[in-house]
């Protein structure tokens, strides 16, 4: 195992991590501000990918496709918030779980109804395709590099939004004391719709960005959703910083675990068995990471202490 | 055995830069009502949490029935007979009044692991629970749903739950909170009787009740006890008048 290979795997872990962050950031914001657990967040990821594939197919422009993903997921989010979600804020988590579970069914099967069961085509644009040579002789896909940069820029943007704008002040106020922001004269329901649409838009953007290198199909969102939950448990609910650190940890643990565990087992047993057993345990790596964080710090690395 | 039932020695507790309790020493003696008064933010809730076990003091000790209980859990202190009531009623609203009272009785009797016997057929537990309800005047409401009780009745039930623990001391966090003058009078009369069963450490804002009940009063301001004494001593204390009763005097 060479240093170049390890460096490349670390980049892969980072790239996976920043995409998870886009999902987790929205979820954690929505939970932090509205106290809502949204299982349908993965559906918005899917909506973004489908919108991007449709627009890319019609116009051939990747940037338009990304814009479409962001906008349509945000719109879908706002719509869902107005029609369903806002009736759930003062309900218990159980009702939220069931209602958003129902939304998953509606979104998934509805999308299949509209688009059929076949995966859609979405490719990366020519100006981002192909590998580039990084210092140290690492050959790495340009698109993935762009994802890392874009993801970190969005993280920075979110941080600026929350720490330096009026909306950010309101969001932070909402996280600390929900009655308070009402008293401050903030239009709460508009704030909630906005935050939900923001989270949805981020999920949709992630769906489109990832959809270009994966397959755009029904059900693509839920596995990512569950990983985003793991990220939030590790990072702590409501914390953007926690979501970022958690996402990077999960991305690195998953990528590096998948590489090194089978290699490690090869020292003890025959290669074929080692790869099978090693990858079985590697698939558990991030959950074990989560368990360790739970034992050490039950409310996550950056969650509010009780 | 001394006369002291509950004693804190020099309790200090900080949250970051804020000193919530600073060397607080108080004691509760057999048969008395010892009231703790002080403005909002003086550290009363922090003090109660350390006495009952939710918070561990940074330094200092808590003694209950001559045992050092500083390191004991809420549960252990409760099982020794330290009964507290909450400022905001902590009652199972979906359950009946009797079921709430039974909760204390079965906690005290250590019977919470019985899984197959109908709790309402446990004559011992029901006897204890009904007796406590009788004592606070809620016996006729035993079958009512707790959510249907008036605010005053809930305060009474709160006391009844504490009673079922066979308490050796009460710690009451603003039992009069939210009560009208009539309700306040009734509850004051009840507490006045209860002190003979077990002494009461009373944190209260309602000064009429405090002056009517308290044998001694401690005044907590900015985390420190600035004075302890009888009602008259406190009324007369110039430091208290200045720091706390200032404008009322």
């Amino acid at each position, binding site marked *: *195992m060479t240093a170049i290979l390890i460096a490349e795997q670390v980049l*892969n872990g980072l790239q996976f991590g920043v995409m998870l962050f886009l999902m987790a950031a929205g979820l954690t914001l929505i939970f932090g501000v509205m106290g809502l657990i949204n299982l349908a967040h993965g559906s918005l990821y899917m909506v973004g990918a489908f919108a991007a594939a449709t627009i890319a197919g019609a116009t051939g422009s990747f940037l338009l496709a990304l814009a479409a993903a962001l906008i349509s997921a945000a719109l879908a989010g706002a719509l869902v918030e107005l029609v369903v979600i806002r009736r759930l804020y003062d309900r218990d988590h159980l009702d939220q779980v069931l209602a958003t579970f129902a939304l998953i069914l509606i979104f998934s099967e509805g999308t299949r109804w509209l688009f059929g069961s076949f*995966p*859609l*085509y979405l490719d990366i644009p020519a100006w981002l395709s192909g*590998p580039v040579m990084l210092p140290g002789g690492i050959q790495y896909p340009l698109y993935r590099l762009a994802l890392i940069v874009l993801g970190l820029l969005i993280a920075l943007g979110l941080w600026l939004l929350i720490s330096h704008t009026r909306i950010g002040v309101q969001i932070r106020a909402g996280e600390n004391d929900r009655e308070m922001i009402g008293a401050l004269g903030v239009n709460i329901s508009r704030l909630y719709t906005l935050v939900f649409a923001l989270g949805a838009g981020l999920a949709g953007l992630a769906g489109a960005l990832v959809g270009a290198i994966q397959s755009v199909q029904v059900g693509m969102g839920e596995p990512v959703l569950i990983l985003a939950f793991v990220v939030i448990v590790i990072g702590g609910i409501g914390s953007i910083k926690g979501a970022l650190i958690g996402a990077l940890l999960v991305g690195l643990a998953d990528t590096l675990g998948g590489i090194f565990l089978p290699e490690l087992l090869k020292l003890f047993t025959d290669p074929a068995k080692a790869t099978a057993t090693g990858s079985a345990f590697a698939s558990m790596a991030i959950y074990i990471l989560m368990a360790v964080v739970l034992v050490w710090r039950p409310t996550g690395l950056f969650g509010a202490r009780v | 055995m001394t006369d002291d039932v509950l004693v804190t020695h020099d309790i200090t507790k900080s949250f970051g830069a804020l000193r919530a309790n600073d060397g607080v020493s108080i004691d509760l003696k057999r048969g008395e009502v010892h009231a703790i008064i002080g403005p909002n933010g003086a550290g009363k809730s922090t003090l109660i949490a350390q006495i009952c076990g939710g918070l561990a003091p940074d330094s200092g000790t808590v003694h209950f029935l001559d045992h050092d209980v500083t390191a004991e859990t809420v549960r252990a202190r409760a099982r020794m007979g330290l009964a507290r009531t909450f400022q905001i009623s902590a009652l199972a609203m979906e359950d009946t009044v009797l079921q709430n009272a039974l909760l204390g009785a079965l906690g005290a009797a250590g019977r919470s692991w019985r899984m197959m016997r109908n709790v309402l057929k446990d004559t011992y537990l029901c006897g204890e629970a009904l007796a406590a309800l009788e004592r606070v005047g809620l016996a006729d409401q035993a079958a009512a749903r707790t959510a249907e009780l008036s605010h005053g009745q809930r305060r009474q039930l709160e006391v009844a739950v504490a009673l079922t623990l066979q308490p050796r001391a009460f710690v009451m966090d603003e039992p009069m909170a939210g009560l009208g003058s009539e309700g306040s009078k009734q509850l004051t009369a009840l507490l006045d009787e209860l002190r003979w069963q077990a002494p009461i450490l009373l944190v209260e804002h309602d000064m009429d009740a405090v002056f009517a009940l308290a044998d001694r009063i401690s005044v907590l301001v900015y985390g420190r006890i600035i004075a302890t004494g009888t009602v008259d001593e406190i009324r007369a204390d110039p430091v208290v008048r200045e720091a706390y009763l200032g404008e009322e005097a």
Partner: protein
Amino acid sequence: MSVKTLLAAAGLVALAAGAQAQVKVGMITTLSGGGASLGIDTRDGFMLAIGMAGRDDIDVIVEDDQQKPDIAVQISDKMIQSDKVDVLTGIVWSNLAMAVVPSATAQGLFYLSTNAAPAQLAGAGCNPNHFSVSYQNDNLHEAAGAYTKSAGYTKPFILAPNYPAGHDSLTGFKRFYDGELAGEIYTELGQTDYAAEIAQIRASGADSVFFFLPGGMGISFLKQYAESGVELPLVGPAFSFDQNILQAVGDAAVGVKNTSTWSKDLDNDANAAFVSAYEEKYGRLPSIYAAQGYDTANLLLSAMDKADISDPDAFRTALEDADFDSVRGDFTFASNHHPIQDIYVREVIKEGDIYTNKITDTAMEDRDNAYVGECSM
């Protein structure tokens, strides 16, 4: 009711049906969820053959298994108990087949597989009433191994998902490729990001890559592989180069070699008729699943011409004869009721706007399967 009385009941029903010479077929396949495209093609291919034959002595009931084993079992119970079908068919996935086939054949029904053919059902668990009309699961992987060897590659890197079909895949590959390997990896089932694996491939010094990643996994892998700058030749089984999937992969797939028992450009009359009828009726190119569904229906029809379903032994013999014109050319059954057929090498090409395959080579001729000896029937 014991198994015996159930069998007797099934026999009675079969007798009654025989009087009207009516055959009832239950098709359990995946029509909803992520894997629906495979089941839809299977159904369409099957129904196309029935429609083209223009016969009214066959009833087909189609139900959606949602790609869930318990639903498949529930449907098979319903078809056997209430619809009283004679023949079951249509299951796409091996795990669903394992849930349904053993107990259905134990109850005396015929099962004709349009796709799934796990090793258990070909070897020790074979059953006289179970026929695989598609292949044995290992076949395409074996052919890929044979092709890799004959094409002169000496250091392939091989990968598959970590689940039974993935293990069978790499075992099958290695059965016919016995040289050195640059690496061997099992990925997570349903994995969508292969950056880590591609990096390993790059570092391994391989001269070619064999991969088995069905469905969305293959799409993701191919797109990411094309981006990575690794330019080693790819070989895979046909599953990732299915007509439906190719359009979602796009240019990334062009030039990839894949092994298949069928291709739309296979030169025989049955195939030409099938491809044009399918395109005309459904407005899209057929996939391998459609071809297998079509063949399965024609096999069934050929047996119905020769024997009455009320006489299971005669009907079984008629099926064993495989007296139909397969779209795959020569087709016979091995003694464990799995096909003996040629397996081809195809290359992905772009025809106008459509991505599709063309045959370039034959990887194996008259291949049966590795489990014939284990089946005592």
